[in-house]
């Protein structure tokens, strides 16, 4: 009974397998049987090419992404991302939960900006159930959402520098992000997965602690963010490594269904806050920064520009916010009449969308979650071939995918 399960080497189990055979198997690249045209093309090695498996445990794959690189020396010939290491089947889980419960399943999808992950389904459900959201709740949503956007962009800048080999910026941006997370924790009660937006409003009014922290932070945020970026924007090495890397033009970006900062860095001023206004964004004054270059540097700098616009929005929200309730009267158990609804919000990475189908019961019949990271990760195989391994990181980091969102 006390004997422990011991797994010896396979060759010891089966005397017909010699160590040599095991070695030979591991010498030759294990090439799967091609299932599709693309896979057959990818796994056919040309002269001098080799496959390099990167991930799922690799320092710079932003979680558990696995990519197979086809290399010629250090030059990337082709790249095939392999997903699913973080797949949790959130859509199925949502179908097995009721309408309120479904929101908290979407929350951890993109743990870096989770308010947006709940905003899209909440909006979709409100459309399905014909709920009118109080204006104060809408302002609070915009306020907290923009705060979360800044927090997400701050983290992006740190990650970007880290993937290019800089150690310090990531920790500085975590300090910055931590302040915002503390504020949001003061109002939502949680520090990472807020679960704050509800069908018909938000979970509670903003409180004094939040306001005092926010006022304190707003008074120095601009200067502090500028100072942090000074470490990177004027860094010759970073600029030289990011400029001209992974150039994405506007036309291709549209065809790749890219949204968010990534498409705006390619010169397309598409922002759902303006292109298809929702919430109280029509009443707020802000610009949509764009850049024409479409390279990694542009994608990086564009997010810095967006942070400034978000600060403007927060400022206006604080001044324009009306008094009133923050929650419409919504029953605990809702049964929306059968129908379909789609809602999309502009998150820090692009368009977060939810497509919900109601069959009249208390559970979603189908709930589709659209995550921008998933779409943007496709760009890796478009932009990296022809560059070096190191540039793969510069490009992937500039697209800012979060594996929680990619793998749903």
């Amino acid at each position: 009974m006390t004997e422990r399960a011991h797994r010896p080497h396979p060759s010891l189990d089966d005397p017909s397998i010699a160590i040599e055979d095991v070695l030979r198997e591991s010498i030759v690249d294990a090439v799967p049987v091609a299932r599709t045209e693309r896979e057959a093309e990818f796994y056919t090695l040309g002269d001098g090419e080799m496959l390099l498996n990167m991930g799922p445990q690799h320092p710079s794959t932003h979680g558990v992404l696995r990519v197979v690189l086809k290399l010629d020396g250090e030059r990337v010939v082709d790249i095939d991302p392999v997903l699913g290491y973080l797949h949790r089947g959130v859509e199925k889980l949502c179908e097995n939960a009721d309408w309120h419960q479904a929101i908290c399943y979407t929350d951890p999808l993109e743990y870096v900006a989770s308010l947006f992950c709940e905003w899209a389904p909440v909006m979709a459900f409100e459309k399905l159930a014909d709920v009118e959201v109080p204006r104060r709740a809408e302002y609070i949503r915009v306020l907290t959402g923009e705060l979360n956007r800044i927090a997400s962009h701050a983290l992006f800048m740190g990650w970007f520098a880290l993937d290019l080999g800089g150690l310090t910026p990531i920790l500085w941006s975590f300090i910055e992000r931590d302040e915002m997370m503390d504020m949001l924790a003061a109002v939502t009660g949680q520090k990472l997965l807020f679960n704050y937006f509800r069908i018909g409003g938000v979970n509670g009014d903003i409180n004094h602690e939040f306001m005092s922290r926010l006022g304190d932070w707003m008074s120095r945020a601009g200067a502090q963010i500028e100072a942090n970026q000074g470490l990177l924007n004027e860094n010759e090495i970073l600029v030289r490594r990011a400029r001209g890397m992974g150039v994405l033009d506007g036309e291709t970006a549209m065809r790749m269904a890219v949204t968010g900062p990534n498409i705006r860095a390619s010169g397309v001023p598409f922002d759902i806050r303006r292109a298809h206004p929702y919430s109280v964004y029509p009443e707020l004054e802000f610009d949509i920064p764009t850049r024409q270059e479409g390279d990694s540097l542009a994608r990086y700098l564009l997010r810095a520009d967006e942070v400034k616009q978000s600060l403007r929005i927060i400022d206006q929200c604080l001044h324009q916010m009306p008094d009133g309730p923050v929650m419409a009267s919504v029953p605990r158990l809702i049964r929306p009449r059968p129908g379909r609804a789609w809602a999309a919000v502009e998150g820090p990475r692009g368009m977060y969308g939810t497509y919900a189908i109601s069959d009249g019961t208390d559970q979603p019949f189908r709930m589709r979650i659209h995550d921008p990271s998933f779409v943007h990760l496709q760009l890796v195989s478009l932009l990296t071939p022809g560059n070096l391994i190191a540039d793969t990181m510069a490009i992937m980091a500039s697209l800012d995918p979060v594996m929680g969102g990619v793998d749903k």
Partner: protein
Amino acid sequence: MSMAVVTWQRLNVVGKILAIAVPVLIALGLVTVGVAILAGPFAIEFVGDNVPLLRFVAAIGAVLLLTIPTAFVVIFMELKVIARMNLRVGPDRVGPYGTAMSVVHGLKFLSKEDFAPLGVDLQVFTIAPVVVFVGSVMTFLVIPFAPGLFGLDMNVGVLYLFAMGGLTVVGLLMAGWASFNKYSLLGGLRSAAQMVSYEIPLTLSLVGVVLLAGTMSLNQMVLAQSGSIADWYVWQQPLAFVIFIIAGIAEANRSPFDLTEADQEIVAGFATEYSGMRFGFFFFAEYVNVFVVSALIVTFFLGGWTAPFDWPFPVAVAIDPLAWGVGSLVAILALPVVGTLVLAAPFWLSSRITTLQALVIGFILFNVVAIGLVLGWAFVSLDWVSGLFWFFAKSYVFVFFFVWLRGSLPRVRIDQLMGFAWKWLLPAALLNIFVTAAAIVIVNR
């Protein structure tokens, strides 16, 4: 018989230890004295006749031993300084201010399983870290630490240095190949390409210094720079100084040129498959290299162990205890007690501290003062102590500089790295040689 047993059983633990240790120590002492009496004259004669040989053996032993604290200090600096730059605290649990952290790192490596993955070329895999370590440790041999304190004063010291630097590449390449891992292979190839490329500007940048000093011996070079800060070669060879720093960083595989172990790209490069003490050797060699490059910068361009201003020392402070008489000696013996009491007095007078605590504080303070006095005396009257001080002070400034770079710069790309070496550093180094040679010819005419 029973008496002895009963007596033994009555002793407590300390007593038992003493009961064993004291006779053994006495016996050992007697044996030592006997051996010294019998063999002493021969030993003295042997030492006297073979000073160069013994000096060489002692130097090699000292060099091997010296690398360990050096690596520990550099690792600790790296941990703590980068932590401060990241607005973190860094290690603060093991030892005062975390100073023992790097020692614990070393113990951790020793206690880890010596693991070799399936498919590695075991012999090459095992030798590789040794080659790397030997390559970096052997460079210590020719570095002049202080007047008279050097392993070997070679007349081809500069060549020897670069030869040993070249040995490191062999080890990295062997590690990369033997690991049976594509990341390791890429790391090994990167390191070979990088270090072979940067060795050329590194060597050429020193030609100017060699021309000025007229020798390739490191010790002679330092002597040629002695005097004040104005005599250092950094003023006559500013371009070579810059080239040497940049190429030295690349040669030591430090950020921003740490492509061989770029963890965001190729995990850990050549060291991916290594663990335990084999990895520890790489780790050690890397940090020893950081110190060696700093020491070389100081030796070649910043006057080595010479002081930055016209140093009036060594001042001969005549201390001859035998001439002081018995009264003075008794006074010296009483000094610790008196000093402790005097230093404890102010604390004792303060009401919040107990007598015992005050005494302990006084004792510690007295020790600090006494050690400080002894070191101060050594500093002003022994030239090798002040030489060591200046040498390490200057070297650690550059170690700090390297750590600072690591904390603030992203990594360059492999083609930028190579392009920089061949397109900028190499022509600059050649230009430097040309200008230096021309200047020497003009001045001497």
